[in-house]
């Protein structure tokens, strides 16, 4: 997941934000990061086989304050975690684009 950070930044790059101050940009990135994390976890939960869901939930809660541990866990627990994360980031980008067209 070494390109995870680049993907998040690419969301900002895709949005025509014009000139806003640094604090607001950082705040926006935090906000997007939170929403994306929640979406990714929900999506992964749907992908986990039912017999392993309890373990998944237990471990996610256990690492809720340590994103690095959580990522390591996800990476090893779900074979195609990278693909799923990419898909969720792409979905979110599309949502924002639709929003701007409204």
């Amino acid at each position: 997941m070494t390109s995870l950070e680049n993907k998040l930044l690419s969301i900002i790059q895709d949005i025509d934000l014009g000139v806003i101050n640094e604090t607001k940009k950082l705040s926006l990135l935090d906000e997007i990061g939170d929403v994306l994390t929640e979406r990714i976890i929900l999506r992964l939960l749907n992908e986990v086989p039912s017999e392993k869901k309890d373990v998944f939930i237990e471990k996610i809660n256990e690492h809720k304050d340590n994103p690095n541990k959580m990522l390591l866990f996800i990476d090893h627990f779900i074979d195609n975690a990278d693909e799923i994360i990419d898909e969720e980031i792409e979905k979110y980008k599309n949502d924002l684009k639709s929003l701007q067209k409204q």
Partner: protein
Amino acid sequence: MHLGETIPQLETRESESVLSQIHEFNVQEKSKNLKDLAANGIDKMKSIFQRLNIKKAIKSFFKKEDENEFEPIDNNNEDISESKIELNEKIEQEVGPKVLLEFDTLNISSIKSDIYTYYKENHTGNIRKAIVAKYPEIPQNKIDIAVNRAITQLSEKPVKEFKSKIATQLEAHDIFKEDFAKFWQWRLKNLPPTAHAKFVHTDTGNKLQYENFISDAVVSKFLDQHTSTLPDEFFDEIDEKDQSIHQPIKTPEPTPTALEDLEGVDNLDDLGNRPVYTSEDIDNVFTKELNEFTQSDPTLTEADFINTLTNQSNGWINTQMYDNISNISTKDALIMLGNINSELKPFTRTALSDMHNTMSDETIPFGTFLHNYLTNDSIFSKKDIHIASDIITKLDKTVTLSKQK
């Protein structure tokens, strides 16, 4: 107010509008997501995008604000080069003084200041060469030891961090108690062959056992391959880790002082004076590891344990590690092993004495000698497996460090 100040303000208002729109969308999303997560018993969690590395990229992004673009974080190119440079600089700045400290332990401190002065004046990036050139009378193996130890000290942080990282990864594998095949596949993919056998008899749920299979071989191999190319992100991640992860890891056995360690090892004849460990000692180690193996899975038997170790020993013979040490002369190999005597397991020290006594031709390749010494047929005994593992991994580390200089 003149025109030049008006236009940016208009742009800012448009940006604020977009920002506000996105913010509202995020608030709604967050509310919905948190409800869904709670319904599934999942607590609110920190963002997985919080890693320190992103902050660097964000800074880069802001620097280029006018161009509205950012520089991607390329962990495979620029960061690695910078990391390499930093490591080299660190070695240059820190290894020199550490080597001098090591020379203190080698009881040659009287020439310490001379060496340091010479090193500073003639520094060519290789302190070993500088010392050898200045003091040819100091046995090269002592110089090697001092330099290697200094570098090892410098590497303590990455070693500790690597162990922490591995422990974290393994923590995630508690789940493979239910799916052993998957666990097995993971370890084959992620660890070098020499660590595999130790994995086998480890209860994945028992953190106290981590140290057993996070062996020197794993650490040294990792360092050999990655220390000089680790991106900053690796260290940043580790810095953020919960320090409690270090607690379950067993404290390494205290090592003898440098003088105890080195006393007499210049002379092969003195190797025979090492403490003798009996076959009972070896049996005790074997029994302990066998118990751990069988306790990890009640369906496993002693035969499974022996089979696994035997299969693993064949793996060692084919590894790069074995190739690395197999063709050096037996005399050189035994001297090197003598110099790292304190790092060897007790039963290996005993075997080392025996090896010295049974050596008939000091020029034969050590691989041939080792094989002949350990076994009379094609199957290793349990004692042989432990000794081969210890010797190959530790000697490979020494030879590799020596080649790097």
